[in-house]
């Protein structure tokens, strides 16, 4: 018997309600994200260390190569005092990171984690997930404003610019994919790819590449880590945060990265395509998402940071027109996926 159905009957809840709670909280949501973040941040530090011929985290759990370092950090953050600066707007300061994290994790209700593993299935789930994610920058700007600090102001300004710049390209490449499949529903997008045996990255590599690059920008990854430019503006909008609130804002970008890479898996890598079993399919989706995230964090050891004006001009004058081209390309590719 299906465990979800059994749990629903045991709790006396309708099945859809349980689904809508389980998706953002368990898989692909927060519980999975915790494990992913612990692993990915550790892997990021370890890979950057290896490329620079260093050792990286080691002394917490030496046998695992320091894999529990992040857990130790997390426990320390949990017991640290939360300091609210005197000049800060107290409630906006405290609530905005919590709200940002909550809002970002709500995207998991829309993005499926495997065949039949989703919160809601809607014909607009692609746009809905994107809309939820695009609320996060507003809260980051509120964080920067509420902290009442020069560095956070500058960081908030950068966040505003980066969000507008990145999300234009992100949305254009996302719509190119939607155009290609003729659908905005993740489930039917994956089904189209499974049916035609052509993953989206082969059909429209331009849109896939642009989606990936724009995802790097909006999640503040190197080479576009302008918002949290450590050498320039301390921690950007997150400068004044301490304790568990800092852990939340630090995890926020990884959460966005996780959601976006999950979306990338469905849009361009055919999601759970060869499998239709919920468990196997979920594992396959998860493995692809994790591999993408590892590649995204690996780029930290490859690139330096681009300048703000370079990023803006590159995105608006090169990548955004290219995304529109990809959109046009999708119209030509559409017959591949169109129903016979």
């Amino acid at each position, binding site marked *: 018997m299906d465990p979800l159905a059994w749990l629903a009957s045991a709790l006396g809840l309708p099945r859809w309600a349980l689904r809508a709670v389980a998706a953002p909280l368990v898989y692909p949501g927060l519980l999975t994200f915790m494990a992913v973040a612990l692993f990915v941040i550790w892997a990021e530090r370890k890979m950057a260390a*290896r490329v620079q*011929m260093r*050792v*990286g985290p080691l002394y917490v759990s030496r046998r695992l190569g320091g894999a529990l370092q992040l857990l130790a950090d997390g426990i320390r953050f949990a017991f640290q005092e939360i300091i609210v600066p005197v000049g800060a707007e107290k409630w906006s300061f405290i609530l905005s990171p919590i709200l940002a994290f909550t809002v970002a994790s709500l995207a998991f209700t829309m993005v499926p984690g495997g065949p039949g593993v989703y919160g809601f299935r809607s014909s607009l789930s692609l746009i809905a997930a994107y809309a939820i994610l695009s609320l996060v920058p507003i809260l980051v700007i509120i964080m920067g404003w509420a902290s009442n600090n020069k560095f956070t102001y500058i960081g908030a300004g950068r966040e505003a610019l980066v969000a507008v710049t990145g999300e234009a390209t992100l949305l254009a490449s996302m719509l190119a994919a939607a155009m290609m499949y003729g659908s905005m529903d993740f489930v039917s997008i994956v089904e189209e790819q499974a049916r035609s045996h052509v993953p989206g990255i082969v059909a429209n590599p331009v849109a896939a590449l642009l989606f990936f690059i724009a995802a790097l920008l909006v999640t503040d990854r190197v080479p576009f880590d302008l918002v949290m430019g450590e050498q320039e503006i301390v921690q950007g909008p997150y400068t004044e945060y301490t304790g568990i609130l800092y852990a939340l804002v630090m995890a926020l970008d990884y959460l966005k990265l996780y959601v976006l890479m999950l979306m990338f898996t469905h849009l361009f890598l055919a999601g759970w395509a060869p499998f239709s079993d919920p468990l196997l399919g979920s594992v396959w989706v998860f493995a692809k998402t994790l591999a993408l995230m590892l590649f995204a964090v*690996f780029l930290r*050891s*490859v690139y330096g940071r681009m300048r703000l004006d370079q990023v803006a001009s590159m995105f608006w004058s090169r990548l955004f027109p290219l995304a529109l081209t990809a959109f046009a390309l999708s119209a030509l590719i559409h017959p591949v996926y169109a129903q016979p």
Partner: protein
Amino acid sequence: MLERSVDRRRGGHRSRPNVVKAHLDAIATAAKRLLEPPITLPYPDYMEARPPGYRGVILFHYEKCIGCSLCAQICPARAIKMYRVPGDKRLRPGYNVGRCIFCGLCVDICPVDALSESLVHDKVYEDVPSMDMDPVDWALWSRRVMDEERSPEKPLLRARLDPERGIVYEEAQPASSGGEG
């Protein structure tokens, strides 16, 4: 804008590298480096063998001292001060490691070689007062440091520059600081 006009004045455009190839090269280079072992000395588990003539903490041999106080006079950081020791007619030097700049002037000026340089630098002290030692403490502490030098707790490694592999570490034998004879 400026760059473009400069290029035009030179009469011809600069050859640009192939962008796609450059990115792929960068990623491939980093990926290759990912597989190479780290060259960091695993420090607390292995110690680096110090070269002869290394200027570590100063050691004091009480039985050789004649109490001339030259060391205290020459010390530029005033790390050495003369103390009165109960039961001793002469003043003897005491040592504040926290002030020491490891210049070795005291070792050079000592007429009877009662001071010597050790090979140890990385000592840990529980608090600031414990870094300030009187003559007897200093002499006893010096003996302990010399014992540690002779039989180090952790294996010693010596860095060597290999033209092909970069920095390589080799096992090294413990060396004595030389100034004890």
